[in-house]
């Protein structure tokens, strides 16, 4: 009998129409904890990294951690691990809600989806009963309607559904997998992988339980962890205002990328910050499973939003939904120069319901807007004026992208491919094909090396430096100590991701609180050193995977704009990113060669050679 881990995986071969229940490799579970780590181990073992991300040979893994489904706050997470269609790299896309815990209750730590169905289907998992069902009744539907329709069709109101909307079906390269209507494994196009397999959704109902190995130790560790979380100002801030106050923090330091990174401060922040949302749009805050924070914002569009009609596919788009969070406020707001919250909220709902990543959506559109304003894209090409600050363009292009209509078909490829096609790659703002999230490394130097080295392309969640860079401990514009901190933090967050616990708990409870919880749940005695070592092992196996996929040290880079063009105004004026100074230190801190290859000694130390 396993504890923490459910002990089984579900393997679904869509080409053969077969689903099988297999025992979990427990030796790997101990060495990689779960979620992101365990899935990376399976993917490294089973799949050739050079396959086409949208072909039948790519595998789609949805993996929980040993604490997913327990009462450990916020044990709601699952990780989607696959080859990303946006990046060509291994991607690790995380989501909360209720789907991950439900999969554990059904008795599985992860699902591995292989092959491609010959017609649209969805998967129904009810404990040991697994069916590959015809999706004719739900294909084409938006995310929220898909979920409702599957519940109606099966007569199972308790089903938890993770699936794709039109964007995933249309292979938009930044389509998400969305569960519980508003929670998304958002980045790198994992939804397009699901779509490429003709898989609309995985609907799960579980009646079993998650056991812990040492109940008394476990509960005492939980109480202290939850108490620290309850008392912390970081947690209280997230409960009160969600992630949106980051708008003000980042803007103050000149690190809020504005109009495709042509400025570091946005003049419209008062309209899009935490207070604005709370006063004008918030209905309630909402928690994921077992979450004592409840950062989720349930919002409602105002009657003024009527001016933003969704034209091409008339339908009654929902008036209440979730978000926007900080990242989306930035991508759909500041990055596109839009300060009208009605447009931002509406575009955010569209992204949720069409099933695509609002970060990449906004960032790709911002790139197109810059090119349009520079005269590099014509009205004939775009079909409409794409000017910064135009809310109507934001709504129209968001919808067009989800359905790949008109210029939306170009945007759906992501800004890397779009700028390549129109022969101006210098306007692509991202790394490894993935658009940057909401921090300008010219305001926070450390984000430069964090972005450049992240295994899944530009990402803020693997080593979030603004916290330490605004604390007074480090100079936000200097390079000193940043590389070492980033490498260590990447190891910590990677191990954290493997547990099934939400990253936001670290805003409140110290990481030391989590180790005894993990140990008592699994029965494996992990120390903090073990934990960080496991994070490093996972980081390196992802790196090895990427090297096999054809990525090299040349991909650990940043756009020229960040390294050569400084902002002219604001607190970050005159600063450029000195990646040349930081990258060698980073490779050294990792124990890699000067060209970014893990050494044999390092791999031996990590048990990877």
């Amino acid at each position, binding site marked *: 009998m396993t504890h923490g881990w459910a002990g089984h995986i579900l393997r679904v071969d869509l080409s053969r129409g077969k689903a099988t229940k297999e025992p979990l490799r427990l030796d790997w579970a101990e060495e990689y904890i779960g979620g992101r780590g365990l899935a990376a181990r399976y993917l490294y073992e089973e799949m050739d990294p050079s396959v086409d991300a949208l072909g039948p040979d790519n595998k789609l893994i949805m993996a929980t951690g040993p604490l997913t489904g*327990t009462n450990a*706050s916020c044990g709601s997470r699952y990780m989607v691990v696959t080859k990303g269609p946006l990046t060509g790299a291994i991607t690790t896309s995380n989501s909360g809600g209720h789907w991950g*815990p439900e999969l554990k209750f059904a008795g599985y730590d992860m699902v591995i989806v292989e092959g491609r169905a010959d017609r649209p289907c969805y998967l129904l998992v009810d404990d040991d009963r697994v069916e590959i069902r015809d999706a004719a009744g739900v294909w084409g539907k938006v995310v929220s309607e898909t979920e409702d329709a599957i519940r109606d069709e099966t007569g199972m109101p308790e089903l938890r559904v993770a699936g794709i909307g039109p964007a995933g079906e249309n292979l938009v390269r930044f389509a998400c997998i969305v569960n519980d209507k508003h929670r998304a494994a958002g980045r790198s196009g994992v939804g397009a992988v699901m779509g490429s397999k003709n898989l609309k959704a995985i609907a799960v109902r579980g009646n*079993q339980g998650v056991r812990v190995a040492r109940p008394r130790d476990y509960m005492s560790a939980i109480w202290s962890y939850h108490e620290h979380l309850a008392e912390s100002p970081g947690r209280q801030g997230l409960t009160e205002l969600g992630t949106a106050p980051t708008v003000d923090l980042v803007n103050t330091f000149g690190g809020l990328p504005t109009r495709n990174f042509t400025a570091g401060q946005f003049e419209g922040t008062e309209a899009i910050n935490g207070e604005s949302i709370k006063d004008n749009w918030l209905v309630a*805050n909402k*928690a994921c*499973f077992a979450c004592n924070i409840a950062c989720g914002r349930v919002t409602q569009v105002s009657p003024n939003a009527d001016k933003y009609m969704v034209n091409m596919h008339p339908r009654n788009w929902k008036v*209440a939904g979730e978000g926007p969070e900080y990242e989306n406020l930035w991508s759909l707001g500041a990055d596109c120069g839009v300060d009208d919250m009605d447009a931002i909220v509406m575009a955010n709902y569209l992204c949720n319901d069409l099933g695509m990543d609002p970060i990449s959506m906004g960032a790709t559109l911002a790139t197109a807007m810059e090119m349009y304003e520079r005269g590099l894209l014509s009205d004939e090409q775009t079909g409409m004026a794409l000017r910064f600050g135009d809310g109507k363009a934001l709504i129209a292009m968001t919808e067009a992208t989800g359905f790949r209509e008109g210029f939306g078909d170009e945007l759906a490829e992501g800004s890397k491919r779009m700028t390549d096609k129109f022969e101006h790659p210098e306007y692509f703002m991202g790394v490894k094909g993935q658009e940057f999230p909401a921090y300008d490394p010219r305001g926070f130097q450390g984000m430069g090396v964090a972005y450049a080295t992240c295994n899944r392309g530009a990402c803020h969640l693997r080593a979030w430096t603004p916290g330490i860079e605004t604390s007074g401990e480090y100079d936000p514009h200097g390079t000193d100590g940043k590389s070492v901190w980033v490498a260590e933090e990447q190891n910590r967050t990677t191990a954290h991701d493997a547990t099934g616990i939400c990253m936001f708990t670290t805003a409140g409870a110290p990481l030391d609180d989590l180790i005894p919880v993990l140990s008592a749940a699994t029965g494996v005695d992990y120390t903090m050193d073990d934990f960080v070592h496991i994070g490093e092992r996972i980081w390196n196996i992802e790196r090895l995977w990427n090297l096999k996929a054809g990525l090299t040290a040349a991909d650990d880079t940043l756009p020229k704009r960040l390294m050569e063009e400084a902002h002219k105004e604001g607190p970050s004026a005159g600063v450029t990113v000195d990646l040349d100074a930081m990258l060698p230190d980073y490779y050294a801190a990792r124990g890699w060669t000067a060209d970014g290859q893990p050494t044999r000694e390092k791999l031996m130390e990590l048990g990877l050679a």
Partner: protein
Amino acid sequence: MAKSLRIIPEKCTGCMQCELACSWVQTGMFQPSRSLIRVNIFDEQASYAPYTCFQCDEAWCMTACPVNAISIDADTGAKVVGDANCVGCGLCTIACPFGTVFYNPDTQKAFKCDLCDGNPACAVACPTGAIEYTESESADWLGGWAEKVNESYLTSIEGGNAA
């Protein structure tokens, strides 16, 4: 004065900590399908409502039970299913107007909230104070609320007829 469970839906965020705590007490595992408190999520309204047995004065579960397996705990006033007597017929689960008596397929017996012998785990676990275990005149506080709902329902029907 007896203590009773009071639920304040406005404070609930839908996190399910109460379900997890309850299932832990019932099974020693985290198993929401065996929880005796259930959180209803009304997504479109952004409203979350935990509900469980309110230990009503007029306990239909007791009336329906053919073998007198449900008794009243002298200390807490909770209506408690006695496993030794319960034959698993499920009549109490049908009789309960609130749907808060459940059938446990593992034990093949009925099970319902017994107020954890006076220290309800759901109330302890709730991070937002949406579930309180407090003194009240009657355990049957939901009755007043039901009357209010009924009244406004009748008014709305009458209003509809008049129009």
